[in-house]
Structures are given as C-alpha cells and as structure tokens.
C-alpha cells in the first residue's frame, strides 16, 4: 500500500490549448486540483468546458499541455511508461465506439494481459468478468452482439483487468439508457469500495457527480469555477451562479427552470 497521505493525482496550473495565432483556443486555462487516494473526484461542466480534455491529458492522449501533473507525487513525463498504464486506466464515454468491432470480448480482455506479460490469462478474465457481473456465456461474443450496458461492463472490465489503482471515467453513462445508467453507476461505486480505487469522473450531469463523488470541481470555458465538498446526504454548498444553474439543469426539463437560466457567455 502506498502512503494515503500522498495524493493520487495532483494537477498544478495545467493549461491546454489547440491551434495558434488568431485561432488559439484555450481548452484548459490554469487549472489546479488534488485528488486524494481512494477518493472519487468529479469534474463537471457543459460540453466544451475542458473537462474531458483534462482527462485525456492525464491519460497521455493529449501531449500539448503546460503545467504539472503528478501521479502519487511523481511528475508525469509526456511519454507515459507501461508502469503508468498499469496504475491508471480509462473508461470511455461511448461503449459503441470504445470496443474494437472485430475482437471478441475474450480477445479484448486478453490483450492488456498479453501486453503486460501476465501468464494467468484464464483466471484473470474469469475473475474480472465476475467483478463486472458479465455472464460467462458472453465471453466469445463480438461487441455488436451485446447491449450498450453490457458493452460498458466490458469496457470497465478491460480497464480493471490490469488491477489499476486509478480509473479515469469519461462520462461513463451518458451514452446509455437512463435505466442502465443507474446500474453502471452502482457497479462503479461497488467496485470502488471492493478494490479501493481512486476515480476521476467527468460528467455534465451534476446529479450523477454528486451521487458518485466526495469532491467536485465545476468547470466553465476551460476555467475551474468552484471546488465543492459533497456531504453525507449528497448535497453541496454551491455558491457560484453557474454551479447553481447546473444544479437546476440536472433536475430535468422544466419551463420554470429554463426561464431562470442566465446566459453565462
């Protein structure tokens, strides 16, 4: 076990921009936050607020960034090592796009093991499929033979099979039916407890994030607007008008709510 006092992830003054000159877009603008080990940290904001960009930068998919990212106190280099991927894994938003269409579930799960040279492939696949509650009969099916929820379970299993400590969750439920969303969120909560994982959860839905996370960062236009602590009842003491608006938005579509909206541009 690592020292629980060392934060799992520290982000220091991170800026990410695309393009240059007149077309310079600041996707992330001087953002800093800390994620303690075994905590669930939520990043919330509207589309284009830069939350997914931070996650992709952390995963090493986005290399154009300034600032510092620390994993368990150690600074991350722009080229990630194999050891990094054993510690940090990611679950993507759309389970229809994140599974290779020509690979069976078995192949998808066996691949990370082959890359990292694990020998006990059979055991590990069986174990991880049990963890995400996927029946064994699905093992040799292709992704197109599964439903959205089942696919997302496969994606979570793929992320878990290397036994990482940190999971980056990029809107893991927003491509799924409402009824399936709760199922997947409960599964993620349960897995976090069982495996003492650290989560960074990106979502545009404040309700999802406050259900899942102990700490929430609200983002707008690439800037961190507010950092919130979630109490036992899943409530926050939000003060920023933008956060309050997000809070309203997560309650569903209501004419009265819409009329209270202020344009924050």
């Amino acid at each position, binding site marked *: 076990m690592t020292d629980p006092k060392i934060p799992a992830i520290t982000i220091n003054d991170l800026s990410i921009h695309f393009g240059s000159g007149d077309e310079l877009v600041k996707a992330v603008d001087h953002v800093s936050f800390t994620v303690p080990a075994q905590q669930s940290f939520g990043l919330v904001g509207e589309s284009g607020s830069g939350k997914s960009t931070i996650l992709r930068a952390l*995963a090493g*998919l986005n290399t154009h960034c300034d600032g510092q990212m620390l994993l368990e106190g150690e600074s991350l280099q722009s080229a990630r090592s194999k050891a990094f991927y054993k510690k940090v894994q990611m679950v*993507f938003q759309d389970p229809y*796009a994140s599974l290779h269409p020509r690979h069976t579930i078995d192949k998808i799960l066996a*691949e990370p093991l082959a*890359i*990292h040279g694990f020998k006990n492939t059979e055991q590990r696949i069986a174990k991880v499929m049990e963890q995400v509650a996927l029946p064994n009969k699905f093992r040799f099916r292709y992704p197109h033979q599964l439903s959205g929820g089942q696919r997302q379970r496969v994606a979570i299993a793929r992320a878990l099979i290397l036994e990482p400590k940190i999971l980056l969750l990029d809107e893991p439920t927003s491509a799924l039916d409402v009824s399936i969303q709760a199922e997947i969120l409960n599964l993620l909560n349960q897995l976090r407890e069982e495996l003492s994982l650290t989560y960074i959860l990106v979502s545009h839905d404040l309700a999802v994030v406050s259900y899942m996370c102990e700490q929430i960062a609200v983002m707008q236009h690439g800037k961190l607007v507010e950092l919130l602590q979630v109490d036992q009842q899943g409530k926050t003491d939000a003060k920023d008008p933008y956060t309050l608006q997000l809070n309203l938005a997560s309650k569903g579509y209501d004419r009265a709510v819409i009329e209270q909206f202020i344009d924050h541009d």
Partner: protein
Amino acid sequence: MTELKGWLLAENPDSRTQAAFGRGYLGWLRFYHNPLAMIGFVIVLTLLLIALFAPYIAPEGISSGLTGDALKNARFLPPSAEHWFGTDGQANDVFSRIVIGSRITLVIVALVIFTAPILGFIIGTVSGYFGGWVDILLMRITDVFLAFPKLVLALALAAALGRGLESAIFAIAITSWPAYARLARAETLTIRNTDYLAAAKLQGASHWRLISGHIMPLCLSSLIVRVTLDMAGIILTAAGLGFLGLGAQPPTPEWGAMIAEGRDYILSYWWLATFPGLAIFTVALGFNLLGDGLRDVLDPKSGGQH
C-alpha cells in the same frame, strides 16, 4: 450436419476457435446467397482445379513434336472432337496449351498478390498511423510511383530486364502497389482517432501491436475486395504484355502470347486467337464477380454489421 450448423451458429460460443468459425460461416452464408458471386467463385475454383490437374486434363502437352509431312497434315486443324479448340501452326493442340497456360496465369496472379498488395498495405497503414513526416515521406514516394504510366513503365522494365514473364510480373507489381497504399492509408485515417484505438494505446500497446492487431484487420477486408477486383486487370495487363511480346515468350503457352501468335492468321484460322481470348475473358470475369461478392460479404460499410 445440423449438429455442425448448431455449433457454428451458437449464440454463445465456448471457445475462440468456435467464435471465429461461426463468424466465417455467417460470411459464407451471405456469400452463398449471392448468385453472381457464386458464379465468380466457381470460375476461379475451376481455374484452380484445372491448373492443379493440368497434366492429366491436357491430352497432348504444349508441343506436338511433329515434323515434316506429319506436321503439315496436323497443323491448322479446325475444332473437332479430337482437337476441341483446333491446332495451331506447329500442330499443337490449342486446348492443351490453354489448360497448361492456366498455370502461368495463376503464377502471375499469385506472385502479384504476394508482393504489391502486401507492400502497399504495410506502407499505407504505417503512413496513416504515424502521420506527420512519416506520412509525408511515404505518400510522396507513393505519388512518384503513381505518376508512372503503368504500361510504359512495364515496357521500360521489360526492355531493361529482358523479355520474359518475370520482368512482366515485376513491372506489374511495382506499378500496382501505390493504389493499395492509398487505400490502406485512407482506411487507417478513419480508424486512427477512434476510442478503441485510444483504449488500446492506454493499455500500453506498442505501435506494431496497434498496427497489426487493431488497424490491419479492419483494413484487410477492403484490401481483399480491391485486390480481387484488380486481379482481372492484372491478368489483362499480363496478357497485354505477352501480346506485345514483352511478357512470356513463345513457345510458353501464356494466353496473351497465344493471341499474338494467332493474330497473323485471325481471318483464316479464327480459333487460334479466339479460344485464348475467351479464356482470358472468362477468368477476368470470374475474378470481377468474385470481387463484387466479397465486397458484399467483407466490406462493413456496404454489408452492414448485422
């Protein structure tokens, strides 16, 4: 039989092999219900069988070995029960020569298949995957080769390397790979930013594993379709080079060369050029139909993922 079918179509296969066979069987079913594709498949299969058993099918070999008066009496005989496709100026049985010539056609096809598409495939996927200066460099090389007129380069190569089947094949291979490189690159570009590739990268997969295990299998089907459709063109080019006297040399029974031989007598002895011509026509048609059928089965864009 039903047991085997059940095993192949099982919704929940028990092993990797069963899953792969099941997938293959579903593709075969789709192919099987396409009559034109089946005609193409039967033609190509027949060509393979004829080439395999050529010495047993061809009754008289490629050369009659006759001289003097015997040659005089046996040459330029029209098609008959004894000589189905007639005989040529050397009293050789045209049918036997066409049957044995099928081997040459297949050798050309095989040699081109195992050089140009594979080279183009690797160059295209690598170029599309890495992008940047690797892409620029490889694609400019491809552009250079695309700028050569096929037949003229083939003529130049045949002149430089000497006439013969080998230089014809080499010329065809070296002028046809850029098309495959372009195709593979275009396919790779549509895949390179997908989530499943990002997911594989996040597992720490090496460049080679990503290209060979993730990108290539997805590009392979359109490549196979393209190669099959190009096969007709390749056979025609080889025959064309043979006809121009730059490919296979007489007395090799290459179909294009046989037409060239028959050209002088086309008005008096029509069978000399007609039958090799029909053979080229049939085989080219067969490959085209097969290619169309394969496109329906393999191409995920037109076939649907079901």
